[in-house]
């Protein structure tokens, strides 16, 4: 069975003044209809770049896709025409961004920004599109949608703005929604509301949801499956329940230890030592070895392959089995 959206062996590099940054080094994941995939990883690990490659909105230059495939219903998008890619955007795969204030155009009303897709892509008249825009704002539970549709993004509160962005992304009824840290810029209480809304919409519409996040707490609640990224690679991939029960990669292990825990109040957080590697000079062997508490001689020489751990789990570690079994 072909997956709804599948990313395979993606290599992307940024050619900058300082040299070539290998930002993605073989990223692969897939998401099916009705499924929530969480993409986890430190800042700079390539989560957003992967999403932008899927959407086809990378800045080229400086970014170049060197290898790999992005398949939507089995059709490779990377080799598709620009026109075909544009068709898929919004309608097949839609995306919402972290900071809704800068992601929405400040000089157009929220309504205009929802309606333009409907008029251009669905051939709706102004009044039909307006009606649909109000319905969409209602759907994401923006109160007084009929008035608010005429307002500008800066007149919305942070949470309302993110709701408006979600409404906008749903305008063309996409099959996959990529949410790139949709709650990072928001207050904690609002974060939960937005996450609930997203989860609910995803269920109702049976969409595939790719949820990019730093927040392990969010992941635990909504994700069906999780991929963990490090230095442009997927280091671990597992269903949410078994990943939380027992991580299969030292990096995931470290991430979990760095999570503040209610049952361990007062103890210091075990944060991951050191910094992620420079993507201009990724260390040989396992890219995590300079920071890995379990590293051995082989780790700085051989790149660990994706070990299969059963039940669709994989881990890119030479000692995956040992890590998994504690």
């Amino acid at each position: 069975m072909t997956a709804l959206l599948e990313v395979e062996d993606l290599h992307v590099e940024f050619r900058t003044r300082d040299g070539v940054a290998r930002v993605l080094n073989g990223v692969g994941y897939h998401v099916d209809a009705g499924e929530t995939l969480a993409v986890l990883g430190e800042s700079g690990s390539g989560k957003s770049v992967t999403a932008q490659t899927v959407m086809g909105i990378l800045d080229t230059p400086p970014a170049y896709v060197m290898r790999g495939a992005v398949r939507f219903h089995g059709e490779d998008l990377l080799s598709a025409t620009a026109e075909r890619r544009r068709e898929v955007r919004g309608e097949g795969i839609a995306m919402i961004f972290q900071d809704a204030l800068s992601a929405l155009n400040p000089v157009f009303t929220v309504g205009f920004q929802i309606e333009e897709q409907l008029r251009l892509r669905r051939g709706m008249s102004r009044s039909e599109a307006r009606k649909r825009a109000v319905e969409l704002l209602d759907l994401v539970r923006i109160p007084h949608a009929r008035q608010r549709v005429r307002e500008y993004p800066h007149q919305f509160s942070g949470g309302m703005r993110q709701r408006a962005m979600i409404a906008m992304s749903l305008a063309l009824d996409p099959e996959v929604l990529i949410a790139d840290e949709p709650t990072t810029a928001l207050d904690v209480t609002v974060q939960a509301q937005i996450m609930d809304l997203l989860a609910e919409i995803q269920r109702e519409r049976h969409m595939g949801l790719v949820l990019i996040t730093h927040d392990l707490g969010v992941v635990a609640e909504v994700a069906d499956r999780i991929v963990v990224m490090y230095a442009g690679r997927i280091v671990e991939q597992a269903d949410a329940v078994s990943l939380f029960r027992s991580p299969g990669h030292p990096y995931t292990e470290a991430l979990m230890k760095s999570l503040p825990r209610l049952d361990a109040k007062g103890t210091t957080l075990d944060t991951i030592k050191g910094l992620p590697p420079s993507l201009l000079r990724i260390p040989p062997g396992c890219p995590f070895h300079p920071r890995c508490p379990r590293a051995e001689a082989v780790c700085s020489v051989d790149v660990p392959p994706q070990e299969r751990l059963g039940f669709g789990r994989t881990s890119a570690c030479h000692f995956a089995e040992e890590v998994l079994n504690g």
Partner: protein
Amino acid sequence: MGFYVLRRLLQMVPVFLGTTFLIYALVWAVPGDPFEGKCGERDCPASYVSAMRDKFNLDDPLVVQYGKYLWNLVQGDFGQTSSGLLVGERIATAFPVTLRLALVALLIEAVIGITAGVVSGLRNRGFLDSLVLVSTLFLISIPVFVTGYVVQLVFGLQLGLISPTVTTPTFGNLIVPGFVLASLSMAYVARLSRASISENRRADYVRTALAKGLPTRRVVGVHMLRNSLIPVITFLGTDLGAFLGGAIVTEGIFNVPGVGGLVFRSILTKDGAMVTGVVTVLVLVYLLMTLLVDLLYAVLDPRIRYD
């Protein structure tokens, strides 16, 4: 908004009084005989001088003189020159010419400047971009009187494509002077649009518009342009205010019978009444233009609110 406009208009009153008083004082209260040279080689006869001193209230204290001037002004009377010409009438014939020249220059500046800026801003570091950068640098570094005389010499006298002086100020005849007047600002408009476009190119909202699957034309032509042109349009508004102040050099070179030429000639002939009159009008126009630009800004950018 209405309240804001009212407040701004009220604020203009002291500014207007201050500037016009300053000009009045500079013109009428500086040391030296205001009627020197008015009667050819000889000194003016005493009867003439006393008549003139009387006409311009020169024997009153300065503040009283200014008060009388202002009182006439609010009744629409700009007064007469020493030779008896009506100042108001002269301004009324010269100002429309300047307005026409200003509009021609603004149009040229906007069309060429924005096009060059947008095209070069969209493709960083290409041949076109370098071309625009170099040619704007060229325009910025040449003084207007050089551009003016060169254009007049080459196109008017050597090639004979245009008449070197503007005899009748129709829109067509004002294209070349308008071009000269616009040349400097055109370069600034090009650079401003270029900077604004290349800044907005990487903006998050552009990425969102692309992610929505909008055609590139629309992303650039609607989303990016609408944002990038806000500073450019306000710059153009301010510039129009400056153009309306009369282009002394350009009008001088091409002999355009506008406000700039009028001021220039009046200063040369020490025609105090005319200078005060014209400058008073210009102060008013400039004050109103700045208000208009501020209002325009609020119209263009919904984030700007005046309450």
